[in-house]
Every structure is written in C-alpha cells, then in structure tokens.
C-alpha cells in the first residue's frame, strides 16, 4: 500500500470514529436534559408524565410528615401559588428544613405525587437558585392577583 492510501484509510477510520462518537454524545445530551418546572406548572398539568424533571420551591411550614420508624417522608412544595406533594424515601440532605428552598429531581406518579429520587438543598442558607427565586416571585404575583 502506498503512503497516500495508508493516510486515506487512517483519516477514514478517524472520521468514522468521530461521527459515531458525535452521535452517541448527541443522544446522551438529549436524554440527559433535565427541565425545570414550578409547582404551578405541575398543578396546571404542564409537567411531563414519564420523563424526569426538576421541581423547585419552598418547603411548606408544618407540611413535613414521616410515619414513625419509616424512611418515607412527604412534604408540600410551594411557589407561593400552588402546592405539590413530594415523596422521598431516602435520607434528606443536611440543609433540608421546612421553610427552606429545595430543588428535587424525580418523576410524577399517577396519583399526582412527585416522587423525588434526589433532593438538593444548598450549602449556603443565603443562597437561592435563580430559577426558584423567579418562580417564587411569579407565584406570589399570581397569588396577589386573585
């Protein structure tokens, strides 16, 4: 084989490899986009049914409940306008508390409860995720209108 042929084959293999990889990367990208929804959007039925998404808001004071000795906890999450019940059966993060802002990752169950497989509370109690801050302000505005 001539050097030129060798080079062509080499370039061909590299190009093919890159195309296949790009395809995988693109698919992984689309599959792993997690959209953010507010409790109001969930209450309005805008949230997806089977796809995982992020839900953010304020944990409603006095809404936290957990049967004695059980791991499963339930609480209400609000954007100051609508509430969604969230269920989580793992250990909650250290900074989780009623009245705190959290972001939960999970899916909607048929009975309208959001089943979270991950709950995030932040390092810093001064910090509020921008998207949650926006949805709380929007929720308060709509609540005031009614």
């Amino acid at each position, binding site marked *: 084989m001539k050097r030129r042929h060798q080079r062509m084959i080499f370039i061909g293999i590299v190009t093919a490899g890159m195309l296949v990889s790009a395809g995988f*990367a693109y698919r*992984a990208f689309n599959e*792993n986009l997690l959209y953010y929804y507010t409790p109001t959007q969930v209450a309005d039925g805008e949230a997806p049914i089977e796809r995982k998404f992020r839900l953010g808001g304020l944990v409603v004071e006095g809404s936290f409940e957990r049967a*004695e000795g059980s791991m499963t906890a339930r609480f209400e999450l609000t954007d100051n306008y609508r509430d969604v019940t969230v269920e989580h059966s793992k*250990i909650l993060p250290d900074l989780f508390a009623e009245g705190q802002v959290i972001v939960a990752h999970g899916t909607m169950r048929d009975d309208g409860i959001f089943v979270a497989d991950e709950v995030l509370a932040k390092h810093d109690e*001064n910090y509020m995720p921008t*998207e949650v801050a926006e949805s709380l302000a929007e929720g308060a505005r709509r609540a005031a209108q009614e």
Partner: protein
Amino acid sequence: MIPELGQFALVLALCLALVQAALPLAGSFAGRPDWMALARPAAAGQFVFVAFAYGILAYAFLTDDFTVLFVASNSHSALPTAYKFAAVWGGHEGSLLLWMLVLSTWTLAVAFGSRNQPADFSSRVIGVLGIVSVGILLFTLVTSNPFDRIPGAIEGRDLNPALQDPSMVVHPPTLYLGYVGTAVPFAFAVAALLAGRLDKDWARWARPWTIVAWLLLTAGIAFGAWWAYYEFGWGGWWVWDPVENASFLPWLMTTALIHSLAVTERRGIFKSWTVLLAIAAFTLSLLGTFLVRSGILDSVHSFASDPTRGLFILGLLGVISGGALVLYAVRASSLEAEGGFRLVSRESFLLANNILLVIATILILLGTLYPLFIEAFRATDVSVGEPYFNLVFLIPMLPLAALLGLGMHAAWQKMSMGALLARLRWLVPIALILAIVYPLVAYGATSVMTVVGVGTGVWVVLTSLIEPVSRMLDSRSVRLTRAQWGMFAAHLGVGLFIVGATVTSGFDAEREVPMRIGESAEIEGYEFELLDLRTIEGPNFTAEEGEFELRRDGELVATLRPQDRVYRVRTAQMTEAAIDGNLFRDVFVSLGADLGAGSWSVKLHYKPMIRFVWIGCAVMAFGGLLAATDRRYREPARERAKSRSAVGKPAGQGAR
C-alpha cells in the same frame, strides 16, 4: 484601624501592579533597560503588600474582629483556631484575596526564577502577569473589599459548617495555586506573541512552570473530590457539578498544554498550537472563577453572590483573553515550525492526545454552559444530567488511554508501527485476562464497561511500568532521566485512577435503612450493629453520635462513630460519616435523621478500590513533581550550552 491598613496595602499593591504592567512591557519595546529593571522590584513589592493585606485579614479572623463584615459573616469566637485561619478563604471576598496572594506568589517566583533569561523576554512575562494583577486587584477593591466594616456586631455568624473540615484547610489553597498557576504559561505565551518569536528555549522555560501548576491543580481537584466524598457522606466523589467542571476544564487544557510543550521543546513544532492552549487554559481558569463567583450557574457550590461581580469578571475575561486572542490572530503566523514528522511517531501520539483532550474539554464545556444559553434564548430552565458528562468524557478518554500506552514508547520523528507493537503486543492479553478474571474473582460479577475500564487501566499501568522495570533489571542500560521517570510515574497514576474509578463505580453498594439500638444491617458481607446512640458536645456544635460495630464473617473489623452535628450558630445540620478503609475497600456509615420511636435512618456504603482513585491522583502529581525538577530545568542555559558542545549532541537525548 488595623483593617484599614490592609485595605491601604491593597491600594499600594495596585499601584505597584500598574507599574509592573506598564513600564517593563514598554521598556522591552523601547529598549530601555532602566524601565525593564523595574519588573522585579515591582513584583516583589506587590507581593509584600498583598501578603501584608492577607496577613491583616487573617489577624482579624484570629482576634475575632467582628467589626469587619467579612469576619463577622464567616467566623465565630468559638470556632477552632485552624478553622479561623481557613475561614479567611471561606467566603467570596477572602477567597478572592487568596487568589490574588497566589497570583503574586507565582509572579514573585517567576520574577526570580527567570533571572537567567533575556531581560526583554522576562520583562514581558512579568509585565503580562502585572496586567492580570491589576485586573484582580481592581476587582477586589471595587466589588469585593474584604475589609469593609460594620458597626456593632458582637458575635460572628460562624463559618459555613460544610467548610469546617481539615481538608478545607488544604483544598482551596492547593486548587488556587494550580488554577492561578495557569497565568504563568499564559504570560509566557503572550510574551512570545509580543516578540513574534518562540524557540525551544521558550518551551524549556515555560514547561516546568506549567507542570508545577498542573500538579497543584491535580492535587487540588483530588482534595476537593476527597472532601466531597467523606464530608457529605453520600458516597460520591465527582458529580460533574458546574463548579467541579470549572476546575476540571483548565486541568484538561493544562494536561494538553504539557504534552504540546513537550513537542515544542523537543522538536520546535506545534508552536502556535501550544500558545493557543496556554491562552485557553488561563481563559478557562478565569471563566471558572466567573462561573463560581457570579452565581450564574446553579450548583451545590454556589454561594450568595452579586451580579456586578459577574459582570466585572466577564469584562476582565474579555480584556485579558480577548486581547491575547487578538494578538494571537495577528502574530501566530510568525511562529514557524522547524521540522516535520511521520504518521507513526511520538509527535503523532501527542497530537492525538491533544485532539482528544480538546474534544473532551469542548463537550464538557458545552454541557456546562448549555443551560446558560437556553435560559438566555428560550426562558426555560434546564440542566444537563451527570450521565451526559460520564459518556462524553469516556468517548475521548478511552482511545486516549489506549494510545497513551503506545505513545510513551514511540520514538520522535518516525518509528515503524511493527517495532512499536512488537515491544508491547504481549501486554494486551495480560491486560485482557486481568480485566475479565479480576472482577469475577474479586466481586463475582462483571460487565462490558468493567472489562473495558479495567482492561484499559491495566494496559496503562503495564505500559508505564515496562520501561522502568526493564531498565532496572538490565544494569548496562542507560539510566532514565528524572523527566522520564516523571512521565512513567504520571501515566502509572492515570492507569491506577482508571482501574479505581471503574471498579468503584461498577461495584459500589449503598443502602439506606432505619435502625434501632441493638439492630443490625448488612451490606456486601459487612454487618453493622448499632450499639449505642448518645449526645456529644463539640466546641461549636452538638452532635448525636452513633456507635456501630462493623463485623465480617462474625469477626470485629472496626468500631465506627458517625455523627449528626447541629452547629449552634447557624443551626445548620452536618453529617459526619465514619469510614473504615483499606487499600481495596472503604466501608462507611452515616446517620440520617431521627425517625422517631428510637429509630434512626442510617446510610451504609461499600466502595471497592476507591483509594486507587486518590492514590492515582497522588502518583500523577508526584510524576509531575519529578518531571518539573529535571536537571535540564535546573541548570542555567550557559552551562547547558557548554556541556552540549563538550558532548557534541543535545543533552538528554536518550530513548525518549
């Protein structure tokens, strides 16, 4: 009065930085030795004043001076002394001052390490570093003054409990040393562009600085991962959080830069590419600072932040990186290659390394920044999940690791593929057999990813060991240089890391169970029995402590005491996991929450070979240390020239 001295020192440092940025650069073009001679004194003076300001802030923390806003927000009189000192970088203002201190330390080191280099060149390097200093000092003074006062605070708000951990004493400074250290190759690159000339000497001067920055960055990132691993007790060590990416992207670029510099130093090619990588590495460091400090991305690391700061850093990024890129566009064509190379050669492998690392960087950067674009254009919030990053990191890294084993043994300029394969072919079946057998024997299971990962890791380990081992066995062979030892060691670290990361992500186990005193729970053959629960008083926290006996096959392995702490001042809760670890596995337990009726939620973890991840990083960093202290970087150029003419060929020409 004392805190005002700190602020005053920062202003003086800014004045000196302005001198350092302006005169040496101007002097190098005007041919004024007197202007150029100002570079070193200005750099030294700037260091003294920044260090003084830093000392003042540390003093304010140690003496509980709560009239200083930053101290009042991040410290408390009951905080242990070591954490008072670490609290200096526990918030935005102080960590920026640390950034600045690290930058002026690097500048000082470069100023005095470059005395044997031509004055016009070193003046430009120091001048460029001066420009960066001006930007950061302005940023500190204008938007984030750590010496701002508040009247009437009697007690501080305490340091964020998550940061009250021994590794927080070392993680940020190490990370910053690496992060900010990328300013040095950046300054070298800009100086070369300004001169329109870049020779092998340039690469020889720039390389040790780059390697030192890289090894500190490696260590800093590893410390961070380690901290996350045991401090949070959720068993993870890397989640592709935007802030983790912010430190990892410069690491990838610096890794590429080290390899590209090797080619430039050795062969006088890849010049403009090397310069571009140096600019990219520092740009990503600045971008990382921007992402972390602007609060624009949501992450577990995000601390309260202020949009004007973000805007300021963005402006700084535009001026510094934009300026460098414009200069690159104008001048890059003047950097001529001094030779060529064949398809099968060390150069080709290093080129492949660079391309794959750049692909990884771009894909990770895309995933990190995509949410920002979407938010700007479509007004929906979106985040990119971990599996994306895992996959797009693996796609370029698997071929990289496979090629790495070959590249280490390839000769410069050209080599026959047959000779290369003949040398290493027999290692392939060994790696493959180990990859198939080891998981089955040790963990009784396997998967395609495990075989691929362990196989690749073992391949890298074996190809890193074969040369040093065969040299040691053959007493007549030429001894390896320290730089060669460094290369093999760093790559050995990569191999160990791959094996550790594969096994720990493939075979880890995790359980969350409710437990009462006297009850037991089991994970992967390890039995945990909860013996006792009691309340403990710490210096600034109250903790619930569990006592667990860890047994395997009925034999006592360890007694573990995880805590669930409540910090009194911030009333914040923190979990302290208790870990029993050895080389091949970590087993750990952490307390969740009181479930009532005497029952607690308890989290059990089994992490096989996680320590290979830490050891791999340590070995990589150690390899960097060896390479950076090679003889050719230590002896001055004049003596080199002498020894070169005496021997009749360039020094260090061995099997490399």
